[in-house]
């Protein structure tokens, strides 16, 4: 168990006992990473802030259900991804026209977008073109620096699934970015 993980568990126990200060400590420790995940997933700053708030509401309201077998951060990031999936589904439902997400990329010329996501616009556009499941794998591993095992725990899928999603997501991103290496013409498919 890492020092962070042990500290998180202690903070959760204190929170459940009514120690309000532990709320601030948990927030400070995790809010930026949760916001980062939500921003990469939602690709909209306001919606990412909404999602971040929902993540912490869920986590603190259900803190008594946290089982200490898993790291608190794993649980927290799982809630984050699931909350983003939920928000993305709602956003999709709210659209008046049923435009598939991959046909509705962000406008790369928008300065608001640049400020909002802090990614190169071409990368942002490419990320918008992949499915939320693929995006989640890329966000956790490539953008948040999580291990393959950690991402598998967070996404609650086998590590093989993470590898597969990551491989296919990077390939799609490379194609979107025109970033294919010389000699790359027909990618070899595996069963």
């Amino acid at each position, binding site marked *: 168990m890492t020092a962070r993980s042990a500290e998180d568990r202690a903070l959760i126990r204190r*929170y*459940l*006992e*009514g120690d*309000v200060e532990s*709320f*601030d400590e948990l*927030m400070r420790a995790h*809010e*930026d990473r949760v*916001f*980062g995940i939500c*921003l*990469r997933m939602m690709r909209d700053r306001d919606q990412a*802030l909404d999602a*971040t*708030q*929902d993540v*912490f*509401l*869920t986590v*603190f*309201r*259900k*803190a*008594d259900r946290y089982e200490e077998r898993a790291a608190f951060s794993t649980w927290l990031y799982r809630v984050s991804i699931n*909350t983003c999936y*939920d928000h993305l589904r*709602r956003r999709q439902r709210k659209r008046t026209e049923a435009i598939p997400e991959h046909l509705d990329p962000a406008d790369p010329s928008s300065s608001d977008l640049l400020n909002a*996501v*802090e*990614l*190169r616009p071409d*990368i942002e556009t490419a990320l918008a073109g992949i499915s939320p499941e693929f995006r989640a794998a*890329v966000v956790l*591993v*490539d*953008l948040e*620096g999580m*291990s*393959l095992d950690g991402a598998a725990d967070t996404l609650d899928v086998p590590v*093989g699934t993470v*590898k*597969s999603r*990551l*491989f296919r997501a*990077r*390939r799609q*991103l*490379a194609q979107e*970015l025109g*970033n*294919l*290496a*010389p*000699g*790359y013409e027909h*990618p*070899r498919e*595996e069963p």
Partner: protein
Amino acid sequence: MSDHDLITELISGQLSPEERRAALMRVAADPELQSEYETQLTTASLLRDAPAPTMTATERSNLHASLRQQLHLDDAPAPVAPAPSRWSRWQRWWAPITGLAAAAAVVVGAVVILPDSGTDDSLQFAAAEVTSTVQASSSDEADMGGSADSAGSIEEEQTTTAASEELAPTTAAEDGITGTLEAAGAASPQSIPHVPDVDLDQLGLAYARGADEFANELNKSAESADPVESSEVNVCLDASGDAAGDASISIVATATIEGVDVVVLSVTPTTGDPYLVALDVTTCRELASTRP
């Protein structure tokens, strides 16, 4: 190990030095694999070099303030009660509803009284009475765990009904709300029906058509077994408060929408048609509504 997994693990940096050396040799021996590896490595590097996003100081401050308010951290001695009973969760839902009913009763009472007195002093008095009564009502309910059957609340709800009838005739839809309020107020909160996989539009149509049709629609689709347990209702004071800013609200059912547990509120605005709102019980966010 498949070629794809080999590339992914190489890029992840989780292979031992020996494994990494062997993997690189395998890649170098296959031009197609080499090309794939370079493509994937370049893409992963681009992403890894991106700066981590952060919130601004204002966003951070707003987030903390909003969470503190919604979690009641600044006014509750214990933020999360371990394993609250179904009953207490339900009672917490009822607290704001009965509080709002009390507030509405006093406001209506003041409107009825004021034309007769008609002085600035009486206005101030009436305003003070509204404030103190609402505070007393909220405080009592908080102390009592939001009990819906406190004598004060019942009296004030009765006042609301009587005063409303004097002011304006009720519409069919308002009858529906009144009927629901009466049923909910008279019976145990656990008698609120649970509607699995609710069709909110259908329910809203029935609601707009009047009390009988709404009751029939609810009876038709409701599940009688243990409604509170299945919906896991949480505290959503702010969400219900928003809806009640200029409107009267009432819980009419718990339900699920596409697997999400919701609580269905009827909302009667001061102007416009009444409608139903479904709030996600976990996040207190509006999931659907029949708002015109």
